[in-house]
């Protein structure tokens, strides 16, 4: 077993990437993720890699496109406004089917907003803030350890499917320290990157990294191919945690750091004889629909409550998953405010009391 170390979320993300074999990082400063580029600037040269501070988030994501197309494991990170700027680039990466890891340590918005933790980029993350029919795999860790594990898995998923993967954290996750362990992982069987542009010696077809299909029939074929890939991902890569769900009266849907607060609420509620269950999506896309359908079907369950640090974004996916079986409620804080356990519990009681 590897040694446990106490690390900041942001730094742990950087270290996990390096241990996953990521040698290239292109980024631009923005709070609250600045420790990621700083860590990479310090460490990458020592592993024969390269850190480049790009002139902007747009340049950074396009450098990622170049490095990914050249066959490298590569990463960028930013926070909300910076991620908005990357949307065109992300759409290109998805369109050209390149693997990479994008990290969004979310802060309050819209606009310049604030710098405190938020989850208000859920729509952007899961629906593609960019143009066209594409999807990113969205991983939402709730602890620093999980962030480390998901960074490593994320690179594998990206390479497996030739698709960008987004790690969605928030300022709290990025700034906090927790013990982490960098575990030995058994490597996933990954396809070779025969498609990469590495210089053409005639021993394989010429590599052309591209997302232009001027003939609409061709573009549709490409889109359908992408869709088939997304279907496979929806089948193979769904992850979630179902906690205390059996016989629960209310199911709370919550992800990331917010779900940790919900766990406190579950304990508090238990003391008062209220049974709350938690479904914590770990992949926000693909969304764990089936477990909702299943858990919510229980007789005991009166309602579902989505708790988010936003004004209601994941709640759409929860409603889609629940599909009218049970009422779905929402409670959220936003702008950098973090839900308090007692307020969440009050919501649950209101729901059970028929007041919500």
């Amino acid at each position, binding site marked *: 077993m590897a040694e446990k170390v106490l690390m900041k979320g942001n730094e742990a993300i950087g270290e996990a990437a390096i241990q996953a074999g990521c040698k290239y990082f292109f980024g631009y400063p923005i709070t609250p993720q600045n420790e990621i580029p700083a860590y990479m600037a310090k460490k990458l040269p020592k592993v024969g890699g390269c850190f480049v501070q790009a002139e902007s988030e*747009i340049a950074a994501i396009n450098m990622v496109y170049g490095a990914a197309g050249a066959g490298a494991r590569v990463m960028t990170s930013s926070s909300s406004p910076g991620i908005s700027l990357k949307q065109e680039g992300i759409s290109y990466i998805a369109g050209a089917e390149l693997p990479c890891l994008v990290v969004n340590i979310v802060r309050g918005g819209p606009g310049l907003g604030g710098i405190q933790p938020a989850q208000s980029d859920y729509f952007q993350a899961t629906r593609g803030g960019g143009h066209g029919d594409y999807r990113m795999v969205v991983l939402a860790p709730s602890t620093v350890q999980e962030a480390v594990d998901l960074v490593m898995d994320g690179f594998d998923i990206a390479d497996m499917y030739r698709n960008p993967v987004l790690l969605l954290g928030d300022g709290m996750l990025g700034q906090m320290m927790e013990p982490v362990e960098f575990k030995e992982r058994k490597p996933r069987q990954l396809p070779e990157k025969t498609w990469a542009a590495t210089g053409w010696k005639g021993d394989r077809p010429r590599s052309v990294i591209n997302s232009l299909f001027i003939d609409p029939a061709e573009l549709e074929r490409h889109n359908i191919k992408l869709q088939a890939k997304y279907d496979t991902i929806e089948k193979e890569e769904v992850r979630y945690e179902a906690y205390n769900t059996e016989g629960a009266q209310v199911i709370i849907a919550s992800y990331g750091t917010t779900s940790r607060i919900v766990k406190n609420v579950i304990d508090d509620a238990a003391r008062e004889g209220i049974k709350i269950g938690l479904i914590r999506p770990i992949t926000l896309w693909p969304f764990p629909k089936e477990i909702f359908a299943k858990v919510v079907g229980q007789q005991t369950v009166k309602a579902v409550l989505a708790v988010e640090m936003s004004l209601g974004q994941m709640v759409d996916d929860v409603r889609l998953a629940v599909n009218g079986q049970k009422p779905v409620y929402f409670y959220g804080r936003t702008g950098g405010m973090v839900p308090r356990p007692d307020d969440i519990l009050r919501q649950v009681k209101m729901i059970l009391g028929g007041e919500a």
Partner: protein
Amino acid sequence: MVKVFEKPKALTDKPFHYCPGCTHGIIHRLVAEAIDELDIQQKTIGVAPVGCAVFAYDYFNCDMMEAAHGRAPAVATGIKRVHPDKVVFTYQGDGDLASIGAAEIVHAATRGEKITTIFVNNAIYGMTGGQMAPTTLVGQVTATSPYGRQPEIAGYPIRISEMLSTIEGAAYIARVSVHDIKHLMQAKKAIKKAFEIQIKGKGFSIVEVLSTCPTNWGLTPIEALNWLKENMIPYYPLGVKKDIDGGGE
């Protein structure tokens, strides 16, 4: 009998889609000739722009990437950092490089990125049907300067080569033209030199090539070459603007 002129190996067999007489085709060939002469086809990775040259990935017979509009220098940076031993070039139009991609080219130069840029300045947006570019001449009528480019509203054309010459990381900068045989031979020399600078690891190199757009200028190909010579060259003086390897003006 020996071939004194044939299609360079660094071009594929795909016929160009360019309009009749468009000098993009000449510039493609010059780049390919330079690649052939330096014998670097197997280690060259090119980056195509968004613009009329978007399909350059079909023409250059080496590994290619197609970049988002204006971002070719960033894409090339990503490639070069992963493969420092390869030769990486971008091929970009004036809308692509001088307008939306102004920050990317300035910073590729600033970082002294060891890439080569072929900058095709035709004073217009060709691909999208002839809108004003930052390089459009004063008075030039385009789809978005229907009364001619008016400095009061749209300012003066930007001289990219001169601007980039102020940047330390830029190792070689030249402006050339392809409007006649003499000039296109000079253009080829400059392109080859730019690649050599990259291979030697000296820094960023760029060749600005004045080019025609008969279609959107509303001229015949021959008239277009003359228009280039008579109107563009006076505003965009030719020559080596910077050469840290010796030479220059």
